[in-house]
Each structure stands twice: as structure tokens, then as C-alpha cells.
């Protein structure tokens, strides 16, 4: 199991590094997909099958594809134009943001509450449990997310509708 962990971790990190260093935007997204896959692999290792599959379904099947779709329709995908230096001001500000988030996550882990949670060795129960939790304890955030997404959907329709009306 540990061998698998190291391999998957290495792939994940490689994907992450490539995603920020490659010049070609499409290559970046492909590296990002590799990263998502690595994360999904970690979920599988942790016997969270459902989360792993959902990671693939949502992040690769939807998010990455949408990013690609957006990138495909833009100019200068190959990164041959524009500033060439990687370690510019933007990079440093990005690194700072990443460091802050990383520190927060680390702090959360160090608080030692996660390890006290019961570990599930029964893979088959995860779907059922998540489902129950979503409609009982977490029903308010769940519905709030649903409202948010609906709002986003309506917004997209409005923008597209404007385009359709203009064309007529």
C-alpha cells in the first residue's frame, strides 16, 4: 500500500508542478487532469471509492473539460506571446497565496482532530453514509449550494439569451 501511495503522490505532485510551469495552456490543463487523477487515486487508497469516482466525474469530466473548452476558444494558447519569465511578480504573489493556504491546512491537520475520527474500513458503506449525512446533518449547506448553482445556471442562460436575442 505504501508503494502505491508514493507512486500516486509522485504523479500527483508532478501533475501539479507541470500545471503551473508549462507554457502551453492546454498542456497545463492536461497536467492539471493528471493531478486530479492522482487525487482520485489517493481517495481510492483511502477506501473512499465514492469520493474517488466523484472526483473523476466532476473534476475531470466536468471542470477540466470546461476549462479546456474555454481555453480552446481563446487566442495565444501556445504561450509563445506575452512575458516569458516564470518567476515574475505574479508568480511570487501566487506562491504567497499557496503558502498561506498550505499553512492553514497544516494547522488544521496539526490540531489532531482528524486522526480521532473513526476510520472506515468498510468501503461499501460510504455511499449510503454520505447520502444520509447530506439529507440530514448537512441539508442546509447542501441546499444552499444547490441554490447557488441554480443561480449560476440562470445567469449563464441570461447571458446566452442575450446573445440569441441580439442575433435575431
Amino acid at each position, binding site marked *: 500500500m505504501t508503494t502505491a501511495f508514493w507512486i500516486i503522490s509522485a504523479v500527483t505532485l508532478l501533475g501539479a508542478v507541470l500545471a503551473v510551469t508549462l507554457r*502551453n495552456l*492546454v*498542456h497545463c490543463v*492536461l497536467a492539471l*487532469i493528471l493531478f486530479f487523477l492522482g487525487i482520485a487515486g489517493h481517495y481510492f487508497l483511502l477506501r473512499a*471509492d*465514492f469520493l474517488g*469516482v*466523484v472526483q*473523476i*466525474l466532476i473534476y*475531470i*469530466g*466536468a471542470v*477540466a*473539460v*470546461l476549462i*479546456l*473548452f474555454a481555453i*480552446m*476558444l481563446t487566442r495565444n494558447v501556445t504561450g509563445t506571446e506575452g512575458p516569458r519569465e516564470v518567476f515574475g511578480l505574479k508568480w511570487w504573489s501566487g506562491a504567497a497565496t499557496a503558502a498561506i493556504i498550505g499553512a492553514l491546512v497544516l494547522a488544521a491537520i496539526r490540531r489532531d482532530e482528524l486522526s480521532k475520527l473513526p476510520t472506515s474500513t468498510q*468501503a*461499501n458503506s460510504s*455511499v449510503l453514509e454520505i447520502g444520509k449525512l447530506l439529507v440530514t446533518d448537512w441539508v442546509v449547506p447542501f441546499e444552499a449550494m444547490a441554490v447557488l448553482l441554480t443561480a449560476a445556471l440562470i445567469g449563464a442562460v441570461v447571458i446566452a439569451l442575450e446573445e440569441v436575442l441580439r442575433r435575431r
Partner: protein
Amino acid sequence: METIYQLLQTWLPNLPEPIMRLISFAVPILFVISVFPGIFAYTTLIERKALGRIQNRLGPNRVGRWGLLQPIADGMKLLTKEDIVPRKADKFTHFLAPVIAVIPSVMLFAVLPVGSGLIPVNLNIGILFVFAISTGSVLALFMGGWASRNKFSLLGAMRAVAQVVSYEVPMVLAALVVVMATGSLSLLTIAQAQSGGFLNISNWFVFQPWGFVGFVLFMIGAMAESARTPFDIPEAESEIIAGYHTEYSGFKFALFQLGEYLASIALAGVTVTMFLGGYNGPGSHLPYVGWLISMGWFFSKMMGVIFIVIWIRGTWPRVRVDQLMSFAWKMLLPMSIINIFAAALYHFMPSKFLAWVVTAVGLLICWWGLAKLNSDGEIKKRTYRYAN
């Protein structure tokens, strides 16, 4: 996998543990990678033969008796063809795309119960796995289309992405009714839930109103997902040449075809498992020979579904890209949501017969109403006048 492991433990208890594990891994893998590409090869032949007969032609009949060796000849031809990469193409992505096209399609077979108790991997989230993996194929289409640096390829890739993302939604919702009925995401459990009844047939989900609607919706979604006529717009040859694989030749092209066919075969298998009783059929529950009979049932049903897909391909014209989209969002999505309610209604009604009738009538009315709502009144048969 587990079945083989247990069998080995009972029959050859002296075998060392790692070897037992290895064998139990290897057998299903070998089964998947040997049987399904073979089915792919002969599906192409059957497709060409059937289309030929539909069009009053003979179809391939020169290589071997009845053209039986035609797939091999095709493969050899494609292997020996020049591999052309456009000069301005993104070489790496161009190379990677056909490979990625095949991998998810092969992975789909891992969760298909091909016979009574015969499933390569009994994943408890089988259906979700199917949907997650099949979205992977869209990446390949996108990469191929984008990396070719061809405007037609790009258009094809755009269409492919839009289409697959759109049809995923009604397809998942259509599959949801089955999950509701069985309370499980595992394809094996779903198949088991449809056994019993009269000749192992009457419990198939397709005979319930919601099951039938779900079957139709899922078939449409699967056809769109695997870009089959009438939803073959990503590679609509009369419009955008060959879409995303315009710039592919030789074996890369063959890999695209392989991936596409494997995906549609796998989705046919999933359709069979979810709605057409899977491996269940008369005789599939018998001891000793049941596994063989059930396998026969599964594959013949799968080929039946594939034949319907071919038949449709030989008959219908292709829809337009915007019609495709509005069909997905305005017809299929509402219908699949209504279908979920119908399934729930069916579940909670006391009398099953009454439930059957009520849901059937309700779904018919909804279908008719949706069709009325969506037709803008302009599309109809016309009458013509004559000048003297």
C-alpha cells in the same frame, strides 16, 4: 475476481497466496482484453454487413467466407498505413489522444456482469464508475481535435465536448431510477434484482413504465455519448469531414475507432444490465450450466442492442448541433426528472397493477406534452398547391 479467488482457495488450497492473487487478477483482465476487442472486430463486420443489407448491398464478402476475415484485413491495412502527423500539430497531444481514447473504453468492461456471478470487478459503485470513466473519452476527443490544428477538427472537438457533457446529465438521471429501485450502485446487484419472475424475464426493468422510459432515455444518451447516428455530429462527415479525427491516419485512427466502438459496446452492455435484465433469461439460474447460459443471454442481448443502434444508423438522418442540444436539455432532461418521480410513485403505490397503469399513462401524457411544448408549431407536414 473474488469468485475466482475463492474458487482457487477451494480447489487448489496448496497454491501460494501471491500466485492465487495473481491468477485471480489475470483471468478477468485477460478475459476483458481478449473477448471485447474480438467483439469489437466482429461488430464492425456485422455493422458493415447489416448496413449493406439495409441498403440492399452485400457488404464485405471478399476476405474469407462471408467476409469473416475482413476485420483482420482492415487491421492489417491500418497497421501498415503511413502515420501522418500535421507539421503544425501539437505532436505530444496528437500522439496521446488516441491512447486516451481507448483506455476508458476498456476500463468500462471491468464492472460489467457478463454472466451469473461473473463480473471482473464487483465495484459497489459500478454505475458511477461507468459514468466517471466514460467522461474520460471526451478528453481524448478534445485532445485529438485540438492538437490537429485543423479547423474542422476543432469544430468536431467543440461539438464532441458540448455533446458529451450535455448528454451525461439525462443519462445519469435515467440511470437513477434503477438505482432507486434496487438501492444499489453495483451493476451486479442490479442484475440480480432483475432475476426471478416468469422465465427470468418478467422482472426486467424494461417492463415497468419507468423502466421503459429510462431504457429509451439511457439508449439515447448512450448513443449520443458514443457519437452514433443520429447524434454523430462530432464526426459528421458531410459537414466537418471527419471531425476530431480528420488528421489521423493509420493505427491512430484505428485506435479512435476502437475506443469509440468499445465505448458503444460497453454502453450497450450497461443498458442491458440495467434495463434488459442483464444476464437473466430462461435457464440462467440453473445450477452448473447457468453461468454459460447467462453469459449467452448477456452477449446476445448486447448484440441485439448493438443491432438496433446499427439499424438506426442505417435509417435516420443526423440532427443539427443546436437541435441536439435543445433535445438534450428540453426533452430528455425534463423527461428523465419526470421519470424519477414516476419511479417514486410506482414504488409507493400499494397496487402494482394500478401503479403500472398510472405511471404508464402519466409518462405518455408527459412525453406528448413535452413534444407539444417543444415543437414551435412550424415543423409539420405540409400540403402543396398546384399551378393548373
